[in-house]
């Protein structure tokens, strides 16, 4: 079997045993990137030299008898929104093109310390705003299942890279579904940890109260291993939770749902849901019952208001977070010809540097926060947030986890929703509530939709710091489905 088709856990074990070197593993993935990335366009930056140097370092330390972690020498690709001290960080935006941060994000630093090899930086919707990766200033990424379709977004480069076997692992950020939705539409696993469970330090902010770093992998255990490697309290992030990381790896290995109570969110079905998505979801419910879980329907009436609340809160925070891109200290500068004022240069730079979706959200947010409108918009949206929290709390009194389709449809065509922001926003309908409340949620593959043979994701939601439950249920579903299919879902993907 090709090294690139191995799981991260296998690669880690093979490197640890000396069966292969980290350099060989890294080279295999660099070769794969060279082979397919002109079709997939998952990467904005491939760090060939530094990746091989890191791999050589791991091999040397291993040879010297140093005890290394389970993922030492395993390659990872970072969403290009985490700062990296040795490669550019663009956030998919012209305004940051070529910006070289002087510091590593905590996620970057922790994975570096754990010996993971950084292959490069992956494509994304500009500043993580979008569900398609169409909004990247550097061109869209393509879904390995069908290159005419989107790999989801905003972390579409990271999902595409893993689904295309360019990397066994990647990082993403989930603000409204930006990890789970891309994972669902590319047939891989994507986890949004509990807010505060993984550090935001060095993650270029879109919406501070929602942004959550999380892992992508082709299987649940690999995702848990990556999750564990970068999570945990970070004194540099005030919103980081000072509690032990939930036992996610143990839960992924446990893969047992017998006796668990599982709630199906009633509000996430019906109109707007693709029949093939609903069919696979129903099968997953039946499967969980057959594995010994008790599946019941649960109503969360406030979830209906999650989408509008999200589209007030996220843009409001974004309008403030993105103010700093003002041409003064870093990034693009337009119109500085010695005749213009600082204000004019700021305005010209922002007009030239931001794409249309970013501008749309900055304007939305600026309006929602403006004097006289704050209470009606931002204030009201925060109240909805409280209501959704109560719905979750009530639900978790009855059940251990909640499940739903991750996204109402399978991957749509590139450009299809570009002129219809509302249709685009609907892709995050089922994922947004967990962001508004900070709950944990994962997406695992649950088959292909009959009408288009494209992957469908199952979302498993758990309470704050109940991340392990997501992995436990996800791993059980994964094991049962793979034994039914006889192979991982991705084996059904067409060759690139």
């Amino acid at each position, binding site marked *: 079997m090709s090294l690139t088709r191995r799981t991260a856990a296998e690669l880690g074990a093979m490197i640890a045993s000396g069966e292969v070197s980290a350099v060989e593993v890294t080279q295999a993935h660099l070769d794969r990137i060279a082979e397919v990335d002109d079709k997939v366009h998952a990467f904005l930056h491939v760090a060939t030299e530094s990746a091989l140097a890191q791999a050589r370092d791991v091999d040397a330390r291993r040879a010297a008898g140093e005890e290394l972690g389970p993922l030492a020498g395993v390659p990872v690709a970072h969403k290009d929104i985490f700062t990296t001290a040795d490669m550019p960080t663009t956030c998919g935006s012209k305004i940051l093109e070529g910006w070289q941060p*002087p510091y590593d994000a905590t996620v970057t630093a922790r994975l570096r310390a754990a010996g993971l090899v950084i292959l490069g930086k992956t494509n994304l919707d500009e500043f993580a705003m979008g569900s398609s990766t169409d909004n990247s200033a550097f061109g869209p990424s393509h879904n390995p299942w069908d290159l005419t379709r989107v790999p989801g977004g905003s972390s579409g480069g990271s999902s595409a890279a893993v689904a295309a076997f360019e990397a066994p692992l990647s990082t993403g950020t989930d603000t409204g579904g930006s990890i789970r939705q891309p994972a669902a539409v590319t047939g891989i696993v994507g986890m949004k940890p509990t807010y505060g469970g993984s550090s935001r330090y060095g993650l270029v902010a879109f919406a501070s109260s929602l942004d959550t770093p999380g892992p992508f992998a082709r299987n649940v255990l690999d995702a848990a291993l990556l999750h564990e490697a970068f999570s945990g309290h970070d004194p540099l992030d005030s919103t980081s939770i000072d509690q032990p990381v939930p036992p996610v790896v143990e839960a992924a290995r446990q893969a047992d749902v017998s006796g668990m109570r599982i709630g199906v969110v009633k509000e996430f079905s019906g109109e707007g849901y693709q029949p093939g998505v609903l069919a696979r979801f129903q099968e997953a419910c039946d499967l969980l019952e057959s594995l010994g879980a008790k599946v019941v329907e649960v109503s969360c009436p406030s979830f209906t208001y999650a989408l509008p609340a999200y589209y007030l809160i996220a843009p409001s925070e974004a309008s403030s977070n993105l103010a700093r891109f003002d041409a003064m200290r870093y990034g693009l500068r337009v119109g500085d010809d010695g005749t213009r004022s600082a204000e004019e240069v700021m305005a010209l730079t922002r007009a030239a540097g931001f794409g249309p979706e970013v501008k749309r959200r900055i304007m939305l947010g600026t309006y929602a926060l403006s004097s006289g409108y704050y209470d009606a918009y931002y204030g009201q949206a925060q109240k909805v947030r409280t209501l959704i929290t109560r719905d979750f709390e009530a639900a978790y009194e009855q059940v251990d986890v909640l499940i739903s389709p991750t996204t109402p449809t399978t991957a749509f065509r590139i450009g299809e929703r570009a002129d219809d922001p509302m249709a685009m926003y609907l892709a995050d309908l089922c994922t947004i509530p967990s962001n508004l409340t900070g709950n944990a949620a994962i997406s695992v593959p649950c088959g292909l939709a009959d009408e288009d043979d494209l992957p469908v994701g199952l979302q498993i939601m758990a309470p704050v710091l109940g991340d392990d439950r997501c992995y436990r249920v996800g791993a059980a579903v994964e094991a049962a489905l793979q034994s039914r299919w006889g192979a991982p879902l991705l084996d059904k993907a067409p060759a690139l």
Partner: protein
Amino acid sequence: MTTPTLMPYDEALGRFEPVLGVETHVELGTASKMFCGCATTFGAAPNTQVCPVCLGLPGSLPVANAAAIEATIKIGLALNCSIAEWCRFARKNYFYPDMPKDFQISQYDEPLCFDGYLDVEVNGEVVRVGIERVHLEEDTGKSLHVGGATGRIHGADYSLVDYNRAGIPLVEIVTKPVEGTDRLAPEVARAYATELRELMRALGVSDVRMEEGSMRCDINVSLMPRGSSEWGTRTETKNVNSLRSIERAVRHEIERQAAILADGGTIIQETRHFHEDTGETTSGRSKEEAQDYRYFPEPDLVPIAPDRAWVEELRAGLPELPSVRRKRLRSEWGVSELDMQAMLNAGAVEPVEATIAAGATPADARKWWMGELARRANESGTPLAELAVTPAQVARVAALVAEGTLNDKLARQVLEGVLAGEGEPDEVVAARGLKIVGGDEELGAVIDQVIADNPDVADKIRSGKVAAAGALVGAVMKATRGQADAGRARELILEKLGAA
């Protein structure tokens, strides 16, 4: 710039009643910045005390400085404020090159401390100034506009920004509107700022140097016609960088606004800038151009919820407050309120206290600090407390005078020597040979010689023209190069010539 029409102060006060407000920004003297670990040393080379956080680099996050929160609560307690049980930071959004994130982390409708007061004394009368709020925020960087005539951004060739100051913890203290000060409004404003400065010093939370900008006051003034109870439109005067300027700025605004109102005009709600050189204010931003700051709770920081027991601990640990201390010292030193006020204004209270502690009498300590040393501080533009002389040295000089080794004139020379770095007072006395021409015997010999040299004058004195003794005293002082006790010399001369 046209000179504004002013109404003479007395006339203005005859027709209008001023309402006063003061917003004070105090830079806290914490070792590190508000939201990062950078140092806060004043005067470092530009942009050397910066990091990803205080430069607002993409991805960086703030972490609140616990020492700054503690200092703010202490200030609130000393100002008799309530301390919030739960409050949040808020973002104040506006674009400006010296603000790295293009928003300032501040507090909006949930200040850490609120609803207090500070009593200040003006002409022996106590005025209670209400405190609306005390909140914590971060300072901005500092712009330097190069070229152009005004040093302002408009007309400059280019601008430089120093971010060393960006992120330094800043406490904003806002008074409630102060009514009923009448013609004492300027003095009340000054006394309030003075008292606040003393309070910050006593708490040890800031070096409160107005000239370095670590304490900055914005002055709000409005007028209402006598007999009316409806406040007028207020202006906010910025750039008021000394205690004296505060007084001048209030006075100027009263005179300016009175002239406009008397002429049937209206006051524009605006920011005005005070000019130290002319004592005038000029228009800055008007309300029409005022920004919508789009405040919202800072999502990168967790709420502050000070533990009640801890707050009570801080309250119990507050030092003796300046007003209480002054009352105590006044009675201990036997000085009048006015004298104490003068010492306070001169920054002499601490040095005097330390000098007394080093053994000087209160009268001597006050005399040297408020006299010779105040004069020298004034000349060199140095704060009194920063002169190169210690209270112990001043006490030693006073002791040398008391024991008759020095007279006042010599003592001034000794202090000059100490200030010039010539060593301890005794070393200066020895090195410069500054010893009073000592006992009556030594002095008597000099006097005998002077009488012998001036027989005519001596005769005059003998015949009862005592006033002529001055000439002989002068001769004695000359002969001793000033190192004689002139009073004793006069006594001895009169004695010797039988005129005593």
